């Protein structure tokens, strides 16, 4: 079958998709987006977490056919997603999430436009949570990182100053075998703190 959906703001088509293929397989093997990882393919580890119409899901548990006409954000599109959210005012505190309509309206800028205009160097190529993971030493082997980033970014979108218990609850579906999670907590706290200082700076 043919499946057509939006990935990181761009319309994509996949042909000859077998009925049992997962969204994860289609992203990785048909669309050349291997950022979502295949650690368990059972919905247990969270390494393949993507946003489906704004909602974090394990893409290994989503049949490709289910995403027809819908909107997917993967780790490859996370930086653009976060940038556009910031430009549009983001979500100021509390639980807001991304509504279905909002998610459908969202579209990434084509990466090639950045490259052609030569502006890429000026724009931070990373979202705040991506930069925080690097700075906090939360990346070791990095296999769990894409899923954690998508989940953590969604947490911060809902709750810009999460408590440790909030962070643990939000990331409890994402396994990491290398870090002991302490630096992952650090990274989320760091991204939240940077977000706050950014906001308070603007407010003052």
């Amino acid at each position, binding site marked *: 079958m043919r499946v057509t959906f939006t990935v990181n703001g761009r319309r994509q088509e996949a042909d000859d998709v077998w009925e049992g293929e997962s969204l994860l397989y289609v992203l990785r093997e048909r669309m050349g987006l*291997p950022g979502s990882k295949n650690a368990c393919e059972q919905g*247990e580890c969270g390494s393949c977490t993507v946003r489906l119409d704004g909602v974090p899901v394990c893409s290994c548990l989503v049949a490709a056919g289910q995403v027809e006409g819908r909107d997917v954000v993967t780790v490859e599109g996370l930086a653009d997603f976060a940038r556009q959210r910031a430009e549009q005012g983001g979500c100021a505190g509390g639980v807001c999430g991304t509504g279905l309509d909002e998610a459908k309206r969202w579209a990434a800028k084509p990466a090639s436009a950045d490259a052609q205009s030569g502006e890429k160097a000026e724009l931070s190529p990373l979202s705040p949570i991506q930069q925080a*993971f690097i700075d906090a030493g939360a*990346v*070791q*082997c990095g296999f769990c990182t894409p899923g954690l980033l998508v989940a953590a970014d969604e947490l911060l979108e809902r709750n810009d100053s999460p408590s440790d*218990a909030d962070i643990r609850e939000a990331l409890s579906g994402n396994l990491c075998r290398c870090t002991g999670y302490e630096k992952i907590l650090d990274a989320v706290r760091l991204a939240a703190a940077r977000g706050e200082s950014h906001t308070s700076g603007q407010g003052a």
Partner: protein
Amino acid sequence: MAGVTRTPTHLTQGGKTRAGIGESTLRPDGTLKVTGEFAYSSDMWHEDMLWGFTLRSTVAHAEILSIDTAEALATPGVYAVLTYDDLPTGVKNYGLEIQDTPVLAHGKVRHHGEPVALVAADHPETARRAAAKIRIEYRELPVVTDEASATAEGAPLIHENRTDHHIGHVPHPNIVHRQPIIRGNADEAAKRADVIVSGEYVFGMQDQAFLGPESGLAVPGEDGGVDLYVATQWLHSDLRQIAPVLGLPEEKVRMTLSGVGGAFGGREDLSMQIHACLLALRTGKPVKIVYNRFESFFGHVHRHPARLWYEHGATKDGKLTHMKCRIVLDGGAYASASPAVVGNASSLSVGPYVVDDVDIEAIALYSNNPPCGAMRGFGAVQACFAYEAQMDKLAAKLGLDPVAFRQLNAMEQGTLLPTGQPVDSPAPVAELLRRVKAMPLPPEQQWLTAGAGADVRALPGGLSNTTHGEGVVRGIGYAVGIKNVGFSEGFDDYSTARVRMEVIGGEPVATVHTAMAEVGQGGITVHAQIARTELGVQQVTIHPADTQVGSAGSTSASRQTYVTGGAVKHCCEAVREKVLQKGRAKFGTYHPAWATAELLLEGGKVTTDGGEVLADIADVLQDEAIDLELEWRHRPTEAFDLHTGQGNGHVQYSFAAHRAVVEVDTELGLVKVIELAVAQDVGKALNPLSVVGQIQGGTTQGLGVAVMEEIIVDPKTAKVRNPSFTDYLIPTILDTPTIPVDVLELADEHAPYGLRGIGEAPTLSSTPAVLAAIRNATGLELNKTPVRPEHLTGT
């Protein structure tokens, strides 16, 4: 190697060369990893590639009567189906030390999940469905699953006709290896004991559970060879095992490390390497194999489960008199690293304590259980679980504080191991215990401190909302351990580094090329830091790891920063000397310091050790490049005597101490680990950020085995019952507490920069500390890992 260690502060304090050793430099692959662009082995892709799939045995021990592949081969989209009969050469087995592991089962299967046949097809599902059409007729054989069944009279032999070099020293062919250690006279010393404690301990089978599954891509070459892109821990060890099976000279099997999603010992043995190459060479097309999680549990060896019997004595003033122990490790169907695990378990069985009179025996079994081999801590983990429980028992019996009792018996620099080898570098065991005990304790009943009432998320059971604090008790436990660093027992544990220095765009640039497997531990970060420090350049390129450079040895045994880091340092020093030679030849006449002073490379310049600049490195080199490849070895070790266990078998030791604080819901048997504090001596923290990350990660794996991790094998059928992340549990962020880390840096004068291998030690003492805390909370004896609710509630 000793004596040439330069004071690193010389090179970093000037602030000219940034991101040298001692700094928390960020990972060079960090950006790629957070954007999803980093190519792990399962991300490899090639136009027109096929997918390989492995058919595995559904029984643990059986004769293979027939294999019918016709229907599978006739499936549309299938390009090849291979069995044992299709192997191209007479070499049909492989193995790290003993070549007893079949590439594909021939005649017999010896464990559940053993590879029997291979399929290559144009879609992974096609390959899986075709494999399901292969018909195998088995005649099941009785299974051997423990020491009693393995050594019983008439027990089936797992490997009939064994010929390996251990066969002369083992009491039964179903025993892989045996290492006794006798020192002093334990029976005589026992007479001096005022108290004697003994215990039997059971350590469950742990899985490495690295997140990136076994995977890789084999691409057939035009020359009849093959290019293999794969996640592994030791490229050259793989190569040595792969090439003979394929019937190719090693130079025609070109291996490149692809992104590795964790390893922890589970990638020391081959998994899909030969299978992918066979399918690629047969079909003439690139073949990718990616295990799913179910298959991953069958695709790599696990940590040896163990039974340990211990007896210790002590005088009433708290001094250990003697120790006797017997350690039985279950190696499963194939040898893998079992002989070396036996060596570690026996030689480190007494722990970081002074005990002069010991009687030790460790063995590893062959059985029909899943093969076991390397995992973080490698034999020392199981022993630490037992001896630390013994220390608490002794302290309790003597009415002494468990930490004070340990400190009273703690080894120091100069203490002899049971092998007679002196520990000839700092051994701050008492100090690590002191430090971990001195760390502030978490607040009592912290679930009440968050605000109004209890936040259930902080309680045992968490969001399941199983308690509001009633029936919850707290306990505190301590443990400390000793782990050897590097390969022991006379192994030629060398590494190779190639360093090139040249001028690009007016700047001196270094390229470091090694075959070291970066598995997440941060070796590439450290290599760049070493090159910056030694060569005074800012820009360092880390060449991808492949077999075009000499072996780096394995990324295991906490050895890689020591040995390959040592090789990089050694090679950089030689390159530096060449730069200085060129400088003397070009500019020596202009300044007397070229001939008389000790010269450094720093900030892109040649300087005197007083900081006077003599030349730009760029001017010295101009358009010439310096390119050297050198091997480097640590000081040699020797084999343990097979009868007495005596010998200088180890290179270096690593020490960590833990304090665990737990809360237990005694009604439901649920455990919440509140905090796991660590103190560890790292010799020299080349990258403090990475050091702490390694310590916290190792601690968490020890926590896992304490309370949840175990591969469960049915004792009647030897079948694995929980090969999935649904049923094999590893700690989540909710299960993992705060892990404060106190890092001590006591230099080992024998090691590069004084460093100590760090990756494994924190895995040792974490488990017994958690167990001690649960015992402290509940008063139960608890001699088995993992502790399950039924052990706490007696149901």
